[in-house]
């Protein structure tokens, strides 16, 4: 397990070396998410259209180690945008990856940009 989670490390925007062209904007449902594969990693990309914001995090929920977060439900707690895991409703901040309703490990998060109808995720390698 530890090796599965260890692969996922937060990438800050200044650390981005590769902008991976993930998919076209319409592959991502409004106020929803979808997963992409990049070098063996599974990354969930969220189109939070209600807020006009895009986020990306690891697709793996740290609670029961399930590749599922892209199918989670979006929402907010106070000002913080969040995603709820479909399995046991663990919620995580989309901005920081912190588990908001428990003490699970943080999610790794990735920068996202949208250019000319395509969604790009930033990786450090």
């Amino acid at each position: 397990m530890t090796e599965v989670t260890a692969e996922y490390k937060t990438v800050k925007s200044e650390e981005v070396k590769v902008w991976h062209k993930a998919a076209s904007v319409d592959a991502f449902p409004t106020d929803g998410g979808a997963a992409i594969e990049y070098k063996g990693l599974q990354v969930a990309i969220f189109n939070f259209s209600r807020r006009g914001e895009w986020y990306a995090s690891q697709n793996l929920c740290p609670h029961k180690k399930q590749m599922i977060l892209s199918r989670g439900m979006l929402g907010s707690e106070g000002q913080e945008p969040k995603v709820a895991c479909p399995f046991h409703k663990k919620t995580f901040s989309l901005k920081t990856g912190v588990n908001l309703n428990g003490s699970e490990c943080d999610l790794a998060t990735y920068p996202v940009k949208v250019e000319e109808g395509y969604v790009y995720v930033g990786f450090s390698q």
Partner: protein
Amino acid sequence: MEKIIVIGNGMVGYKFCEKLRAKADKNKFEITVFGEEPHAAYDRVHLSEYFTNPSVSHLEMAPRSWYEENDINLISGEMINAIDRNNKTVTSHKGTQLPYDKLILATGSSAFVPPIKGVEKEGVFVYRTIEDLDAIIEYSKKTKKAAVMGGGLLGLEAAKAMMDLKQETHVIEFAPRLMPRQLDNAGSDALLTKMQELGIKLHLNKNTRNIAGEGQMTGMEFADDSNLDVEMLVISAGIKPRDELATQCGLAVGQRGGIVVNDLLQTDDTDIFAIGECALHKNFIYGLVAPGYEMADVVVNQLIGGEEKSFKSYDMSTKLKLIGVDVASFGNALCENEDHKPIVFEDKHTGIYKRINISEDGKRLLGGILVGEAEAYNMLLQVTLNGMALPPNPEDLILGSRGGEETKMELPDSAQVCSCENVTKGDICQAVIDNELEDIEQVKTCTKAGTGCGACNPIVKDIFNEQLAKMGKTVKNVICEHFDYSRQEILDIIKIKKIQDYNQLLNDHGTGDGCETCRPLVASLLASTWNEMILDKGKDSLQDTNDKYLANIQKGGSYSVVPRIPGGEITPDKLIVIGQVAKKYDLYTKVTGGQRIDLFGAQIHQLPDIWEELINAGFESGHAYGKSLRTVKSCVGSTWCRYGLHDSVSFSIEVEERYRGLRSPHKLKGGVSGCRRECAEAQSKDFGIIATEEGWNLYVCGNGGSNPQHAQLLAGDIDSETCLKYIDRFLMFYIKTAEPLNRTATWLNKLDGGLDYLIDVVVNDSLGIAADLEKEMEFMVDTYKCEWKEVVNNPELRKRFTHFVNTEIPDPTMKFEDMRGQKKPVEWGA
């Protein structure tokens, strides 16, 4: 370590141990308890429940493990028969000898058996211990007529037990009225009428002279030369304190029994205390449990060196349900030797009698009696005990206010609300503030209020709600931080403003960006209002994952597929299709409890293909993923079964197809049985239909699951059309008014007015909404579409069913292994 020995493991002896362990360091006291019965302490107050649920563990105050966990040495089945006060030891009948520093006598009482000729005969019992009850149950197997001697509290409990044992039941009372210590003549008459209606035969003013029979009793003979043929007699004519040990070691006992104690519950020997029904305090034996608990508290307090506290005479008010009749008596109920002005309300038609005794000056309530309806008991008791000033029209206290403001009285903080656990209103309010309690269960755990006899529960809830309101917390059930409304209010907004879109609702009536609570809830409301495809127009972002992919997510992230099999009826051809599909996609198959077949282990991209094959073979969605109708289970019914009265299969198919796809606050299950043998288990469903000679009986609000509850009769002997009409109304009313994720049973438990109110609304149309409810259901039935059929035929929707959007490969982390020839997902995180 101070050695404490408790003689007697009854309710009071147990409570003493509980309190001592709760209040003092474990290492300060070594506790040994002797109980002569084989069982650990059990709840004697609810003893009559043993006749309907003969399990001792159900009545136990605490399991044996509790004594171990609390380092209490419990020695059951051993009777102490000697106390040596000089050497401070006790000796049991088995010869066990133990030293004590302090000795607690909690020996309780035994049944008082009057000196009547023939009481030794076979068939004569007392009503006191589990052993007595076992003997009575055994003996009743060969008898049909039984008498209970004693028309007091315990006697009437015993009479109920005789009814439960299917005996023709007689009650013999020496006094001219029932419950002579609690009721006046008119109160007794009201109770008498109710008892007679239930088939209990009452004989007042009867002095039993002889119990007839050779060896076995065959009847009773009375002083007025009348007699009564009965095969069994249960004596419940009062209690006799168990004071023989006190006598043996030379402690003072009362003339008519009871160990003499002072206000500190000390006997003549300051190292020996007596508590509960064996103690004689100011020439009075307290035969109720609450004063016994208070005595235990007083003694514990002395042992731990707490603030000085003495036992004062105790209020003997009581409220109970006797054979389904509420009876309460409080304060000075009879006012035989006190000047007072009574206010009496009597309704001979409904069997309700209420009396309150007002002081001469009209300012205070002294006590009273309630028979047939005792809702006001807690309030009246508090007014009495706290000497609260009466309202200008004191009759409102028992009649209810006629017009104008409701009579509501503010209790002082010192008001004792729970007498079993001695909890005051102030204790409850303080606990709510200090511990930030947010629901009534927390209040009960924290303060113990309402955990004894439970009579005070309504008032505890009121105090809790008032306290929350005072703290500015809303008692209102708002659904989450994004909407300051209850589910029902949101439904009203959706209907009145004709809102069809979640974002519009949130923009106009909420704050923030929603969450996993309000999104699915609103999705469900939109679906049960407009019945549009649940994945249309961005509604997919509102659905829980099961609804989003129209399948049930399972461990590992695969999904299960459940086609609808209405009423559990399926052709061999369709069975073969299910088998072929399962085989082709390598799915684990299992028969469900709802008479259909679940196919597990489908990957997300396979779902539309699987469903395409199923739909082509004539299947449709089973909505196993939704908070909606699951199945209507049926037995085989009159077409095949030799007992069947009607065709339950046809009716269950009709019902299942009528309500398929209906979105509701929680899942819905139904059942139809073709006769009263009830093979479809319809009474464990949200709605259950059982065939009768004349038509159908309709039961509602049952469920299995973690808190099983039987469905209750909504209407009897109705035809199929009426049955559907009532279910239409019932389900729509539930959908409109239930809180989120409350099944019908929970909803009914919370519904003000309960089943009677529900019958009024659904059957008698008391709210005048029946036609609307039917119309709304008709709309749902008319606009039903199979969701899977729509997805299969819509390429845009089909595209959503994929694990990655940038590659065709399925989730590489999904793993299965073999079990009994089928696949299963690997364990979480393996």
